[in-house]
């Protein structure tokens, strides 16, 4: 059947058809839906892991046992998983192991724009790069075949525009795969003596893969009618085809290792060959290193952000498209904001009112606390970093700085726990706020070990963050309610000055999560009592806007009541005027 499928959905479909047995991931845009769609296939065991390193280790176990396994993540997740990656490259697999990594050119929802192909090359792992949803299905299957034939993990590199585009897919049926388990300590126990031998095998494998790259149909030449010639892969291929339908194209489905003879042969036919790839000059550097002199790449194409057909055309022809309708004025920007009713709003309002504190932040919805109107966050580096950085600041300031770290529940489990253990062990003075909304909010409500539910919504043991923090040795561990604004200002101000590592678990579920029901009691502003002081506007709630006086949009209000608690004139209540 022909169906429209999201690239990520097509990866999941490919896994189903390829007989995958185990799928594991930590959610991260733009990779999240791969695992969510896999969870709809009962034939595949599927889970959210606490982080990408654990996820990859789970998948490696399944593969060595003889089944096909996939582990999915976003580009920055591969940094977390890099440790097992570099060594599973040595051990090889048994059943196929595919690591789907989604890069985010343009940084639609990421903290950097790194290019996964560089890590793959460093780890000596082959990389396939699909260009649409049908190729997502096909390349998953091909990836498992390569993985098993060459005894290697395979990286499936996606980018946002492949992961989050829908195109047509033809569905097929599932095959079952089982290679059985065989104990082999020379292959799977990487002590120096064994690892040295394995490194030789890895180098030979790369050479074999180079030969494979020469003849696989993953790499193909599309003949053209003009003198223009391109080497390209992934989504950039689509941009090239749209911009220049008549050009010659060497379309690479396998971007590492490269087919040297094929590339040289192709380049020898043309005066000039354009290499079109988003982000780093990965193909370009590898191709130029073959001694090819007529390749043109980053001299004219940018290193940052996404490409488009127009961009490629204008870089080659040095022309600019003039839009027929142009605005003369600057429009009001619409940055993302915390949702109406969001519990994080309460805590950032409180933090914005406390003077002279340094707030280290982390990755999640609550990163929006850095923006106006709160401006209540000083740093944001990567998952889990807020805890370690707060400890570092405390030490660097000889414990003088008042440091508050904020981290979400999911992110805390991902990689905040080890930082907290370090802070306690090394006698830090800091306050950690675990903003526990009982879900992974930013990526769309995925469960994790502290929610008490699995990916399929089954109940499971619930990690108790209070007991955990006590066990780690934090001097104060308490739960607070983010909606009690006035109380929390006092509590946090006092607690900051106490010595030791203190933890407040700021607990209130995400207001948009289906699992948690609220008794709705929407708020209204009484125009007669309102003095137009605009204090309620400083909450940054999308439901409150300024008409003549502040007004609450009843379609948006989620009845959290925070505006009522900060209004000094008693003008806000749940009673309609």
């Amino acid at each position, binding site marked *: 059947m022909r169906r429209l499928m999201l690239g990520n959905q097509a990866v999941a479909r490919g896994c189903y058809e390829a007989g995958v047995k185990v799928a594991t991931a930590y959610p991260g845009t733009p990779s999240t839906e791969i695992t969510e769609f896999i969870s709809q296939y009962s034939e595949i065991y599927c889970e959210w892991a606490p982080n990408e390193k654990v996820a990859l280790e789970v998948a490696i176990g399944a593969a060595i046992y003889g089944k096909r396994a996939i582990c999915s993540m976003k580009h920055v997740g591969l940094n977390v998983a890099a440790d097992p990656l570099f060594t599973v490259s040595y051990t090889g697999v048994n059943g196929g192991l595919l690591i789907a990594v989604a890069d985010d050119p343009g940084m639609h929802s990421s903290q950097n724009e790194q290019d996964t192909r560089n890590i793959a090359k460093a780890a000596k792992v082959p990389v396939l790069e699909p260009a649409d949803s049908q190729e997502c299905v096909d390349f998953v299957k091909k990836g498992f075949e390569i993985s098993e034939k060459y005894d290697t993990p395979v990286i499936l590199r996606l980018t946002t525009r492949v992961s989050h585009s829908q195109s047509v897919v033809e569905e097929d049926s599932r095959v079952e795969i089982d290679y059985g388990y065989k104990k082999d300590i020379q292959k799977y126990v990487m002590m120096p003596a064994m690892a040295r031998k394995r490194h030789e095998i890895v180098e030979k494998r790369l050479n074999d893969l180079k030969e494979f790259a020469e003849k696989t149909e993953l790499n193909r030449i599309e003949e053209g009618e003009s003198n223009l010639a391109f080497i390209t892969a992934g989504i950039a291929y689509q941009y090239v085809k749209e911009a220049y339908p008549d050009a010659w194209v060497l379309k690479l489905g396998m971007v590492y290792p490269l087919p040297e003879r094929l590339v040289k042969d192709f380049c020898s036919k043309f005066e000039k060959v354009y290499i079109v790839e988003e982000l780093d000059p990965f193909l370009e550097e590898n191709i130029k290193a073959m001694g090819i002199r007529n390749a043109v790449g980053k001299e004219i194409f940018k290193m940052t952000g996404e490409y488009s057909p127009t961009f490629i055309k204008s870089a080659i022809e040095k022309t600019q498209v003039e*839009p*027929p309708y142009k605005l003369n004025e600057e429009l009001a920007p619409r940055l993302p904001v915390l949702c109406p009713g969001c519990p994080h709003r309460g805590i950032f309002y409180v933090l914005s009112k406390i003077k002279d504190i340094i707030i280290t932040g982390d990755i999640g919805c609550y990163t929006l606390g850095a923006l106006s109107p709160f401006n209540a966050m000083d740093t944001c580096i990567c998952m889990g970093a807020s805890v370690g950085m707060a400890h570092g600041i405390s030490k660097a300031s000889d414990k003088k700085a008042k440091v508050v770290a904020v981290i979400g529940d999911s992110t805390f489990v991902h990689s905040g726990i080890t930082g907290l253990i370090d802070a306690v062990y090394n006698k830090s003075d800091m306050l950690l706020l675990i903003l526990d909304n009982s879900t992974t909010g930013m990526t769309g409500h995925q469960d994790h070990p502290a929610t008490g539910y699995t990916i399929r919504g089954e109940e499971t043991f619930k990690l108790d963050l209070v007991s955990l923090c006590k066990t780690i040795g934090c001097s104060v561990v308490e739960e607070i309610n983010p909606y009690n604004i006035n109380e929390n200002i006092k509590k946090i101000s006092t607690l900051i000055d106490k010595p030791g590592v203190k933890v407040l678990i700021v607990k209130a579920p995400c207001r948009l999560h289906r699992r948690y029901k609220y008794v709705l009691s929407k708020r209204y502003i009484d125009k007669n009592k309102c003095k137009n002081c605009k204090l309620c*506007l400083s909450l940054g709630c999308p439901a409150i806007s300024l008409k003549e006086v502040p007004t609450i949009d009843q379609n948006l209000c989620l009845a959290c009541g925070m505006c009522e608690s900060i209004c000094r004139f008693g003008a806000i209540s749940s009673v309609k005027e």
Partner: protein
Amino acid sequence: MKENLNILIVGVGGQGNILLSKILGEVFLNVGYDVKISEVHGMAQRGGSVVTYVKAGTKVFSPLIDKAEADYIIAFEKLEALRWIEYLKKEGILIYSDYEIPPMSVITGVYKYPDVDKIVKKLGVKFYKVDIPSLLTKVGSPRVQNTIMLGVFSRLIGIEESYFRKAIENNVKPEFVEINLKAFAIGRNVDLGEVKI
């Protein structure tokens, strides 16, 4: 339908932008076209500006629509209609909802919400304006703006109504199918008059 059709759907996170693009995509697929849809997730879900691209034709390569390439822009929010106006072709048509959601930069008083109607007229864009607030009252649900707009749009491209109704049934949760079909019908029957400039 002519060779290739490029449709930009713009709005604010949470307005049903992605669902509408899925429905439209399925309509074109079932009519027999190649289809590509591109969407942006993540930060945009938190009330940010959201855009989806729907492209249909005999063969579609890039899922993106560039500046000056859209045949239609369907806008769920007035300010967002303006934000993406450079993407419209010279002969393209803007269909925009008369619905205002002030962004935080306006709420906090740093920017002004622009006079969208005035600017649209001044630019000389071909447009239809849909009085969404009053139509939503007619449907009796605040959450079906996307299917009302689909109803409006369905009149402009010469594809049989049944394709749209089928695609709504396939993509909307069963409990909301009825209200969405009602919204679609109301949108389809709005008297738009001639296209305005």
